């Protein structure tokens, strides 16, 4: 399979997963954002929230890193700059959700 086809499939697959998760997350965000610290920690401490939030982050970062790399492809002309920007984006898209998921898993 061609690299671009693989990339397109991952974008489409992650977007299908992301749509319901995004809806779930934003409804819950509206529900808890102005609540007390304890309420927010309680929300993120449940097993279902931990699982769904982790899935949401994995899908979101997969989707956004690949789609933003397309924006780089369209607007950055210099090959070297484009490669560095894309690699940095991918590293960022792995590190940020990894740290966030680890911190959510450590909440009790």
């Amino acid at each position, binding site marked *: 399979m061609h690299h671009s086809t693989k990339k397109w499939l991952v974008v489409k697959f992650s977007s299908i997963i992301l749509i319901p998760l995004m809806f779930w997350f934003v409804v819950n965000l509206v529900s808890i954002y102005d609540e007390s610290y304890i309420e*927010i920690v309680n929300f993120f401490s449940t097993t279902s929230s931990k699982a769904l939030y982790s899935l949401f982050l994995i899908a979101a970062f997969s989707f956004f890193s690949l789609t933003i790399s397309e924006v780089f492809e369209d607007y950055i002309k210099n090959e070297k700059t484009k490669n560095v920007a894309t690699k940095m984006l991918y590293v960022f898209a792995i590190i940020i959700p990894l740290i966030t998921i680890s911190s959510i898993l450590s909440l009790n």
Partner: protein
Amino acid sequence: MYEKNPLSPHLQIYRWHLSMILSIAHRIIGVVNSIAIVLICLWTISLLFGEENYEIIKILFQSLFGKILVISLSWSFSFHILSEIRHLIWDLGYGFDLKISKITGIITIVGSLALTVLIYLLGKNLI
């Protein structure tokens, strides 16, 4: 040869129309949402620093700015959800007709506002 290729989407060349505006909006809002998700990650990580350190964030979220921020985020997520569904329908080979494309474009805009209201009402347990 490759270096001379024009960069898409040639904003200065074509006459503006709804699908073009929505395509550009989809990209811009996609970038905005990705930045928002990074900020949401930082918000989640901030919970590790304890209740006392969370006070500043709590004050921010309980202010008018916080409310506007969350409602704006609900709209940008809503727009992205509906616009992405529109793209998935295109990927299945449907909705390319100009008239249909215009209708789905209008549904995306109006629907994103309606979805924002629905999200807010669901989030606040008002329905």
